[in-house]
């Protein structure tokens, strides 16, 4: 529709006395009438009230307006309301301009009515200048492939796949190993309930393997992932053969592995120094022989030694295993050497109390003078300075168990490169926002859960898996993804391929493909940082175009010539 003539309608709001109290609204309406391209101007007591909205709709029809300006409160609360009003009247909602004359004018210049009125006039003038250059926009709708891929077949991946499939979506569950189950396969019992790890896992594995909506690809690797939200095309490598399919969303549940404490406390040097996972194996196979006296050492490699973080679950793993040993051998003498026990929440604090009740003794050591393990003839000897008691302790023991942190594994690093999603300083996957978007990646359409996000125990991994399934399920259930039309577009003639813009984008929406810029509109969040870097002006941001902003600047200083 070729725009012959620009017909702007201006609606100035009294907002009761909030604006009318310190701004001469009628004078502003009079002034607006004479601004270029303004064919209609009126004022209303409450533009956001029903009568205000109907006034706008009637004016659009009556005066065949193709631009609407409302001058009232803040767009942050009322812009969606006025945009939908314009749409209802058949006007493209991007041909609407909001001018804030309450929070930014009448309320902050209450005593200076003359100054406030002048400012209001100028603000309306800026609005008219911008409105003149507004262009209709269509919000891009991207169809979404009605299927999802879950990478990783541990408890997190299984739960996410099951939940999505139960909601009727096809799920491709990709697992590197030959069997599903991940880390829980080689654990013995789980805290806090004490259920047997593998038994409790079977029903979920069976549900996933039997589910007609889930295709399980075990012992295979991810080769390549291209595309964007709604349209990821994935290539797998299975026994040398390539498998290819398209999915709408992706969930990363690649898990983590136990840190190998080589060189710590005699691990590798003395054979009775083992890790918690090795202890679980011994317990599982019932081969725990000599265990009259056991010493467990916490935070081996964590909290600043090899990794800087606390691995959250090793205290509870240690306590659970210590209690299992006590069950087998009630007079076992067990000491846990710790640097603050992380028994957070309700169940874990209760378990920690129960452990002390069973006679398991806890000794706090200082990181500055950690325990040291030596071989004294046949028996292991652990020397530790009890910080709270203020004395050096000598513990002869049959077994030393080291609690080590969970760390990212090589598979996870590769997946992060393939999906071009970032890893944090702690090498675990880096979520979009640590507080309010914990299971989303910054890149839309890719979600995260389980120990790939960071150390977590079973219930927490399950909750994260459900959350990731929720995130992944939304675009699938809607069938399309609607992007606010404020993304960037490029004029390929003007683009010199310098690539400055690509570094600017934290969402990988820009890609330099053989010298020419390619924009994945679905990923562009509309911040406009790249536009500001483009030396040649090839890049432009819809609805916040350079000329629109410059026209606002100009109109501040001198009225736009007729």
């Amino acid at each position: 529709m070729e725009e012959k003539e620009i017909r702007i309608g201006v609606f100035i709001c009294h907002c009761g006395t909030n604006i009318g109290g310190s701004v001469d609204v009628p004078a502003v309406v009079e002034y607006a009438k004479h601004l270029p391209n303004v064919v209609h101007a009126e004022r209303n007591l409450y533009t956001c009230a029903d009568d205000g909205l109907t006034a706008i709709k009637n004016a659009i029809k009556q005066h065949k307006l193709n631009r609407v300006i409302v001058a009232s409160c803040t767009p942050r609360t009322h812009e969606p309301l006025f945009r939908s009003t314009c749409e209802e009247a058949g006007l493209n909602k991007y041909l609407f301009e909001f001018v804030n004359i309450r929070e930014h004018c009448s309320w902050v210049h209450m005593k200076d009515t003359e100054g406030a009125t002048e400012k209001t006039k100028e603000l309306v003038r800026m609005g008219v200048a911008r409105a003149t250059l507004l262009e209709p926009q269509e919000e891009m709708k991207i169809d979404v492939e009605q299927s999802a891929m879950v990478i990783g077949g541990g408890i997190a991946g299984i739960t996410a796949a099951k939940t999505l499939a139960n909601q009727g979506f096809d799920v491709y569950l990709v697992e590197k190993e030959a069997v599903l189950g991940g880390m829980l396969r080689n654990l013995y019992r789980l805290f806090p309930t004490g259920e047997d790890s593998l038994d409790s896992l079977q029903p979920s594995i069976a549900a996933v393997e039997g589910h007609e909506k889930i295709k399980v690809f075990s012992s295979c690797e991810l080769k390549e992932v291209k595309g964007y939200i709604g349209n990821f095309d994935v290539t797998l490598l299975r026994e040398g053969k390539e498998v290819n399919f398209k999915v709408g969303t992706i969930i990363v549940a690649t898990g983590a592995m136990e840190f190998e404490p080589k060189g710590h406390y005699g691990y590798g040097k003395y054979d009775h120094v083992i890790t918690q996972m090795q202890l679980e194996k011994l317990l599982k196979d019932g081969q725990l022989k000599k265990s009259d006296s056991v010493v467990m050492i916490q935070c081996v490699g964590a909290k600043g030694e090899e990794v800087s973080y606390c691995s959250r679950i090793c205290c509870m793993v240690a306590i659970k295993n210590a209690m299992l040993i006590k069950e087998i051998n009630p007079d076992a003498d067990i000491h846990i050497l710790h640097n603050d026990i992380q028994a957070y929440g309700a169940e874990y604090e209760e378990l920690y109390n129960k452990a002390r009740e069973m006679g398991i003794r806890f000794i706090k050591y200082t990181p500055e003078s950690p325990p040291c393990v030596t071989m004294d003839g046949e028996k292991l000897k652990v020397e530790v300075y009890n910080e709270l008691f203020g004395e050096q302790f000598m513990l002869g023991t049959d077994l030393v168990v080291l609690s080590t942190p969970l760390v990212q594994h090589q598979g996870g690093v590769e997946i992060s490169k393939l999906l071009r999603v970032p890893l944090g300083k702690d090498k675990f996957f880096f979520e979009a926002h640590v507080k309010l978007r914990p299971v989303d990646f910054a890149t839309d359409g890719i979600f995260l859960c389980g120990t790939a996000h960071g150390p977590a125990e079973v219930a927490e991994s399950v909750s994260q898996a459900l959350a990731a399934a929720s995130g992944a399920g939304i675009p699938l259930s809607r069938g399309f993804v609607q992007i606010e039309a404020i993304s960037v577009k490029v004029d390929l003639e003007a683009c010199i391929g310098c690539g400055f813009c690509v570094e600017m984008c934290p969402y990988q929406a820009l890609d330099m493909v053989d010298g020419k810029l390619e924009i994945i509109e679905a990923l562009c969040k509309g911040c406009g940082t790249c536009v500001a870097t483009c030396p040649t002006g090839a890049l432009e941001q819809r609805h916040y175009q350079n000329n629109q902003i410059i026209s606002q600047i100009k109109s501040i200083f001198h009225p736009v010539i007729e």
Partner: protein
Amino acid sequence: MSLENIVNETKAYYCLECGKCTGSCPISRVNKGYSPRLTVEKALLGFDKELLADGGIWSCMTCNLCKDRCPSNVDYTKFIRYARAEALKTGYTGNCTHGGVLSSLMRIMGNPNLKQDRLGWVSDNLKISEKGDILYFTGCLPYFETLFKDIGVNSLDIARSTVKILNRIGIKPVVMPDERCCGHDLFWTGDLENFEKIAKLNVGLIRGTGAKKVIFSCPECYRTFKQDYSEYVDMDFELVHISEFLAEKIDEGKIDFGSLEEDVTYQDPCRLGRHLGVYDPPRKVISSIQGIGLIEMEHSRERSICCGTSTWTNCDRFSEQIQKERLKEAKAAADTLITACPKCQIHLSCAMKSKTPIDEVKIKDFSVLVASAMGLGDDP
């Protein structure tokens, strides 16, 4: 009972080593060498011998401050009591003050052949009876009178005032001629053998009088009867402290406490307050005296501080510091300090007499105050 059983019995294994006990303990605050936390940790970490030989376990005032505040509910007071009993068996004992005359007296009173003549203080204007429903248990007041007259404490005034008050409301209480010490200090220093003898003796004597309700003026006797006798002997009579008894009377409107123009402050005895939770009755009685001003000290009710020593053991310069501090706090509140326990009165008065100057605080017993307010005067 071995150290391990003591740990299990008192749930000391729940200790989180958080230090709140030592942070609250009035002794630890002045005596760097004593820490309830380290004492428990010794037991947990197997230092049995060192623990039993440690003189510190006898310094504990068993005032329950730490027990009430322990987030893991470790019953430290019971822990100390059991540890003392165990230490006693291995030949260790606390440093008995006054040459141990008090503990000798108690043990003597545990001897069934004893025939005491302890009613010398009952002058003819005091009406008491041999048999009856209500019995007034005087505990060790006659002996305290003899021992502590010279520091200006007349413990028997407490007994006289109590009887006068009871007489005023029409009660002729039974006062037993051969009543024995309640055995509190034996119990708390671990001499359970003598304690059992005394408990049985006393209950037998009381049953003999047919009493239905026993009134105590001493909180230590009251707690010992109420919580510790039941382990050894069952009792079929009610137990009540004089302050509770009088408070009930106020509700029944049967008593008028007269008037007294004076500002006083009240020392909550550990046994009456923290051990038994009796905080309000004494305050209710005192404040119902017209014209009186009851001003609370900084540390009062659940937070009140002990009078410095318990079971007559390990009274040392640390106890004196605590007592001095307590008297200073009392002085800041009012000129007269009301105590509801004969031992508090003795210990605090003794601290008042010490050489280093300390501002004058009049120390008066609860019953004596009430009696004088009621105009019963203190004529013998």
